[in-house]
């Protein structure tokens, strides 16, 4: 095997810097970024550590294909223990930072310890330095990036903003200015280490073991992307094109999931951003022909001068429909503020919606509101709260801890409209009318969101998706998001492939959303890359190993079946805009039973059995869980 799979270790407490390599066996077992990170996290961390303490490692993993010209291969995984959930966290970021780390010669970066003073890492090939960052501390993401790129060529920056410095539980790590490893508070972990930024550059070649074969596969993927309507749609309007479609399906979470239809949705769509001239340009991650990312700008009105990357669908839904606002200029301003402060727009919008609903239901005292008018649709309150959350001011100090904590403090029944599970705010997906998504969200180790498994095929939108469902379940009739039947079969395959794709650095739009990269193509790319033959079955099996290890990381933290739930509202209230749409406890339990059975996990505890772990060559994991009394 020819792949160089290098790890750079840095201990910020001691200043020690050292290097190691991933073994050939582990490269084949864990594939790369996400899988490799999970393995490293199992080895480098232990259960019960404080997510914001020096014992929590922060691990970056570059995709095995990242840094090559393989299409849609620029994704990087960030792994740590989440301060939002106290469980395992993997987050994923696009842009160009991962490729830069690869050009510096590294596949993984493991940051241990914590610095006493603000620092940043300067990685330029073999030159690795821990540099003071006192003058950067307090600066926003854009200014931090600007200063660190002055005089540097071909340099990419990953950094935190004020939210990360202030240990806000929904703080993101931002890369290439406007790309975010947003979910779960990895930015707060970076802030707890007093690590402001990581500068990466280098000129190390990324060697491909079988370049001719690799090039043929790249050509095939490019042809698939060019032929795929969804890929073209994402180029034209970005993910924000989904707003109109999802609203039309009565599944656009509105006013904190109280409704599934937003009458003013036409003014917060990707189409509207293009037609009204807010779109400035389309932007691609490293080596991506789709270019779904975009920059927008406001030229008129009270927010004139605002500009930023995005907004994505999730942002428009979280800051727009979710807060009852169609003030697109204010939403663009809110998106910019989140990006500058380094905040996850999903969780930020979610806590703001939660707070507005608290006001709607009369459970807040005047002191708790901070004097804000929290009426639905008040975009200025939304903007004020974003600032307050980033700096932990006024009610922002409470909301910065996340919606679960806020509901516990506010009480008075507010847990029923806290749209979270495991402590993570749910992304803006109406799982009550998408049952495979519901199951996927319930079992996601980091909490309920769409970036662990993307079973869009269940909708039956496209022939390729229907074909896939027929193969997975035995009948095309299961390409139906309204039934709970066969959802476990669908979710397992998507989990496996998503994990494998993440590990190769592939965008999920190419793998589980659009199928422009199939398991066969992904396996071919990996094989040609590393110079060892891995077929599609083996690739998916490696994905299963990764998913199972991630589950075990949560079990090490004490997770049980009781943690695999959905937000209370979604399990107990029907969507008013689609009759019968609910994720009832009975439905969720039924799907969980089938899911655990297919995995070979114990249905009572949700823990993998000894036989399952050993079958996946996770013997050492089995030994440790047995020692902890968490193996049956």
């Amino acid at each position, binding site marked *: 095997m020819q792949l160089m799979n290098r790890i750079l270790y840095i201990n910020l407490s001691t200043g020690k810097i050292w290097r190691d390599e991933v073994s050939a066996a582990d490269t084949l077992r864990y594939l790369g970024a996400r899988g490799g990170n999970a393995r490293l996290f199992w080895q480098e961390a232990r259960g019960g550590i404080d997510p914001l303490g020096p014992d929590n490692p922060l691990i970056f993993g570059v995709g095995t294909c990242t840094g090559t010209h393989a299409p849609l291969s620029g994704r990087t995984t960030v792994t740590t223990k989440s301060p939002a959930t106290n469980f395992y966290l993997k987050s994923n970021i696009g842009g160009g930072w991962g490729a830069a780390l690869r050009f510096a010669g590294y596949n993984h970066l493991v940051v241990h310890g914590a610095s006493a003073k603000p620092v940043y890492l300067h990685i330029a090939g073999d030159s690795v330095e821990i540099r003071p960052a006192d003058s950067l501390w307090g600066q926003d993401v854009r200014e931090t990036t600007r200063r660190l790129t002055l005089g540097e060529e071909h340099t990419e920056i990953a950094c935190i903003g004020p939210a990360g410095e202030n240990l806000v539980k929904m703080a993101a790590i931002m890369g290439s200015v406007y790309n975010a490893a947003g979910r779960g508070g990895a930015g707060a972990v970076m802030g707890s280490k007093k690590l402001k930024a990581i500068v990466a550059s280098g000129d190390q070649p990324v060697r491909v073991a079988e370049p001719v074969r690799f090039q043929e596969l790249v050509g095939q993927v490019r042809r698939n992307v060019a032929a795929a309507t969804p890929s073209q749609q994402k180029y034209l309007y970005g993910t924000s094109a989904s707003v109109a479609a999802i609203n039309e*399906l009565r599944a656009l979470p509105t006013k904190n999931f109280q409704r599934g239809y937003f009458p003013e949705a036409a003014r917060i769509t990707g189409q509207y951003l293009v037609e009204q001239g807010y779109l400035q340009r389309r932007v691609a991650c490293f080596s991506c022909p789709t270019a779904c990312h975009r920059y927008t700008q406001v030229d008129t009105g009270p927010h004139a001068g605002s500009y930023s990357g995005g907004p994505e669908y999730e942002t428009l839904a979280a800051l727009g429909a979710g807060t009852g606002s169609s003030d697109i200029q204010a939403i663009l301003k809110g998106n910019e503020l989140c990006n500058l402060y380094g905040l996850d727009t999903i969780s930020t919008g979610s806590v703001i919606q939660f707070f507005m609903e608290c006001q709607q239901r009369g459970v807040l005292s005047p002191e708790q509101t901070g004097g804000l008018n929290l009426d639905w649709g008040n975009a200025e309150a939304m903007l004020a709260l974003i600032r307050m959350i980033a700096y932990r001011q006024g009610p922002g100090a409470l909301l910065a801890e996340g919606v679960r904590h806020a509901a516990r403090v506010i009480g008075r029944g507010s847990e029923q409209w806290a749209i979270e599970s495991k402590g993570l705010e749910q992304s803006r997906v109406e799982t009550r009318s998408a049952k495979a998504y519901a199951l996927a969200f319930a079992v996601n180790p980091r909490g309920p969101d769409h970036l662990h498994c993307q079973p869009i095929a269940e909708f039956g939108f496209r022939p*390729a998706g229907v074909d896939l469902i027929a193969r997975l379940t035995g009948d095309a009739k299961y390409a139906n998001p309204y039934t709970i039947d066969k959802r476990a079969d669908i979710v397992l395959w998507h989990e496996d492939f998503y994990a494998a794709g993440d590990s190769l650095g592939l965008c999920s739009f190419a793998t589980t959303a659009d199928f422009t990269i199939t398991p066969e193509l992904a396996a071919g790319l990996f094989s040609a890359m590393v110079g060892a033959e891995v077929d599609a079955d083996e690739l998916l099996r490696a994905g299963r190993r990764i998913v199972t290890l991630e589950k075990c990381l949560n079990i090490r933290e004490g997770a049980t079946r009781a943690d695999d739930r959905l937000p209370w509202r979604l399990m107990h209230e029907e969507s008013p805009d689609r009759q019968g749409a609910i994720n009832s406890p009975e439905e969720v339990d039924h799907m969980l039973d089938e899911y655990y059975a297919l995995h070979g996990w114990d249905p009572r505890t949700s823990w993998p059995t000894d036989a399952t772990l050993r079958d996946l060559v996770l013997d050492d994991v089995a030994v440790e869980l047995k020692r902890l009394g968490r193996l049956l």
Partner: protein
Amino acid sequence: MSGMESTITIQFMGGGFVPGLPRKLMLDLTEPITIDALAIRLEGILGIVDLRAKLAQHFIIVVNGTTIQHLQGWQTIVAPGARVAVLAPMGGGSGTKGNMSMQAK
């Protein structure tokens, strides 16, 4: 029958795939019609050749909030007063069937 009840609203969202599609169209309708027949009628109204085939290739069609795949497909009946949306999907595969193999187990 009032004015609104005798028309159907057709919204075309997403695009670039079929030049000439309007953003929104109100169509008088005196009796129910299938989506299949509606597409053919739209071909004539909009002057777009092979519109039905293009819709099938690039779009999903939603009638009153539900995709036609989960109704009666192209034989789904559209009644006066209905709302039809023609959406470019954000995922689920390319526009043609069987253009790539799918590993599934």
